[in-house]
């Protein structure tokens, strides 16, 4: 080959390498960007007057006078809409039955959509479900609902070769010539006055209970469940992991038994996470009967098995990284081997061990498959410490799955899903960040 070609190949090889790295970074950005932007909206958003009413009635928060003033203004702004509805209803009564038949179904649909947007009208009986007692609490959602009121969505299949094309026709066309026609214009121009959106910071999203299957409120039960599961897993895995690491690093030689153990550790690390879940179900629940059905305790034990290999490996590395001089100095002062390990080696290795435990804490918090059969339920109250021995709990990873796939109104509560994902990702990142900082300090100290 000519030198020119070889150079070109070399350059293109380099650029393919760069491309791979850039693609990796780009995929991280693409992945995180919607999560951060839309997840942030669970915490900071434009809350409507309905949101403030909900907060007042369900949580007892907010200024009563301000709220009643807002409600009064909103009522005034909504009055023309309701007046038009009443006028049309009267018109229907007065006209003949063919008129009624023509408009009845459309009118009922319109009224239902309006109730979804603005909430039930004053003086109507109280709805049973909390989600029906309020209009749209978030302004982005109320704009979506407004669009549903003003336009009728349909699909055009006239082009048979492809998929249907979405078409929107104005709902006003249904009511042309009636007294209801101006309603749509009023709605479009006055939606701001009717909903009175205000920038709201809802940091209590993390610490509020959920109301009516996550339609409103926060994610505290999930947070608490994740916390219990992750720390419970650490409670089992850390002592076992560190003792194993001490044995492997300080006592074990290179015998057959030791290499068997090492193979087992790496195999355990390779077991698919869902298999851990099945094992937890078959062993902890169906055989040992630690609890009669799913419980936090069983979930924590299953997760502990999952993270055990990580902790063992990292702790062993940390122990081996302690300079040999430490041990010799301690021995020369007359300390025994065990004494040396407990008093000298472990304290020196502690930051390294801590790093690994922090990272596996994040892993335990984010694992879903092992807790599906052992610990997680979709809806539940926050548990007290004592209840964790016998009761299942909601947990962030499982509820992300559950809300995104099995919830009855998946699209309505996207902000809750994104909020949960955002919280989980931030939790894991903060833990990793802490680990990275700790590691940097350790390596500086061991070097110095």
């Amino acid at each position, binding site marked *: 080959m000519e030198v020119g070609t070889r150079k070109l190949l070399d350059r*293109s*090889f380099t650029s393919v*390498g760069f491309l791979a790295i850039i693609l990796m970074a780009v995929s991280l950005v693409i992945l995180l960007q919607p999560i951060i932007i839309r997840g942030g909206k669970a915490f900071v958003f434009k809350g409507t007057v309905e949101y403030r009413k909900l907060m007042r009635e369900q949580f007892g928060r907010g200024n009563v006078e301000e709220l009643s003033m807002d409600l009064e203004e909103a009522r005034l702004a909504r009055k023309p809409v309701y007046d038009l509805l009443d006028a049309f209803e009267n018109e229907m009564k007065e006209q003949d039955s063919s008129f009624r038949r023509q408009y009845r179904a459309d009118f009922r649909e319109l009224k239902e959509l309006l109730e979804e947007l603005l909430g039930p009208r004053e003086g109507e009986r109280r709805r049973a479900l909390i989600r029906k007692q309020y209009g749209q609490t978030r302004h982005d959602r109320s704009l979506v609902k407004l669009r549903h009121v003003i336009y009728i969505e349909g699909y055009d299949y006239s082009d048979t070769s492809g998929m249907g094309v979405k078409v929107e026709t104005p709902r006003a066309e249904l009511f042309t010539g009636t007294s209801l026609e101006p309603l749509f214009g009023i709605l479009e121009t006055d939606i701001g006055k009717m909903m009175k959106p205000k920038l709201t910071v809802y940091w209590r999203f993390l610490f509020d209970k959920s109301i009516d299957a996550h339609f409103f409120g926060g994610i505290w039960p999930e947070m608490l469940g994740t916390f219990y599961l992750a720390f419970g897993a650490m409670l089992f895995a850390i002592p076992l992991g560190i*003792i194993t690491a001490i044995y492997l690093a300080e006592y074990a030689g290179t015998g057959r038994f030791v290499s068997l153990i090492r193979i087992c550790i790496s195999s355990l690390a390779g077991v*698919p*996470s869902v298999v851990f879940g099945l094992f937890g179900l078959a062993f902890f629940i169906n055989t040992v009967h630690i609890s009669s059905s799913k419980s936090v305790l069983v979930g924590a034990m299953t997760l502990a098995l999952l993270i055990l290999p990580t902790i063992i490996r990292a702790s062993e590395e940390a122990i081996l990284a302690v300079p040999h001089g430490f041990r010799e100095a301690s021995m020369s002062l007359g300390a025994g081997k065990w004494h040396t390990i407990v008093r000298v080696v472990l304290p020196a290795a502690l930051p390294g061990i801590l790093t690994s435990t922090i990272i596996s804490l994040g892993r335990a918090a*984010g694992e879903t498959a092992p807790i599906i059969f052992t610990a997680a339920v979709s809806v539940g109250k926050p548990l007290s410490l004592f209840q964790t021995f016998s009761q299942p709990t909601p947990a962030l990873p499982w509820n992300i799955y559950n809300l995104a796939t099995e919830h009855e109104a998946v699209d309505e509560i996207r902000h809750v899903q994104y909020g949960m*994902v955002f919280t989980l*990702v931030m939790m894991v990142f903060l833990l990793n960040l802490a680990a990275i900082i700790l590691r940097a300090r350790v390596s500086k100290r061991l070097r110095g």
Partner: protein
Amino acid sequence: MIETPDKINRGDLGRRLMMGAKGKRMRMIGSRIGHSALVLAASSSLLALLFIFYFIIRDAVPFFSLEGVGEFFTSTRWYPSRDEAEFGALAIFIGSGLVTLGAVVFSVPMGVFASLCLSDILPFSLRQVVKPVIEMLAAIPSVVYGFFALVVLAPMLQEKGGSLLAVGAMLVLVPLTIILIVVVSDLTSNLFAENIRKIMRIMTAAIAAAISFFIVLKVYHFMNGLEVSSGTNALNASVMLGIMALPMIVSISEDALNAVGRDLREGSYALGATRAETLVKVVVPAAKSGIVAAVILGVMRAIGETMVVWMASGNASRIPQPWFNLLQPVRTLTATIAGDMGEADHVTGSSRYHVLFVMALCLLVIAFISNLVSELIVRRARKNGR
């Protein structure tokens, strides 16, 4: 939990632990007990693995006595909840394989190139920036990837799947064909005599360019015309799995590449090789075993992953037509276990419950064997290295 003192094996405790414990029997016994406890705790992972195997097998075996072996591995009819239940898992096995294959095709070249770039090409300061990116990719929980696949990627694929695929294919194909044209023209021009070599080179390049332009255009139009009927399909799951497997592949193969000594690289440079030639012909062959181990572990991660495939693959138990059509929904082993256990849980003891353990056993065996293989490869390489 596991350290019951009556199980202590006193046979292999030859060494004394405490210095200066001569004659003090109590201390001797104490140290022996301590040591045994250590051994016992250390064998907890051995016990855990044994227990996992035992209990998965224990609940898997009844399925074969209830339903036989043949149907499970050969039939594609998966109807576990019918009265006349059918448990043909062939399509599920193929689904798992297909999704994993897609992930491998995507992540192995990218992962190996990225690790080469990290170990040999990037300057140290940039490496410090890239490392956290990889660590972040590894730290993100799988359910977050699944959520992204379901909520963001799937609608995107469904709406503009064809054009996305076309752009992706162009990103790969165009640079590749340009390199190929140059290389081909260089190689073929050597066949001609010295005086016409330059002209022939230009001519072959022009011909190759024309042909490949035509082919690339065809591919583009084909891709652009593709319609994705469902955004949750094998491709979606493959891409997500590929991204998830990347950090593992990159970090392990980078370790392997770094373990190749400087002297090998310098020797190659001294002979006049370019960096690409050094990497391809010297460094990669020397680190081969480590890279293979990394790929095996990455594949294992993809096979064993649950949440992403459950949310992104569409969960349809049928073999895609043709089999490599990644745009159709598939169902995988892990997703089937996760999805069906919720209902099968109530009928403990039925074949519907046990069949899931059979699947778990298959996963476990695959994972165990591939782990052993990768361990073996690494060990042999280490021995040879010494």
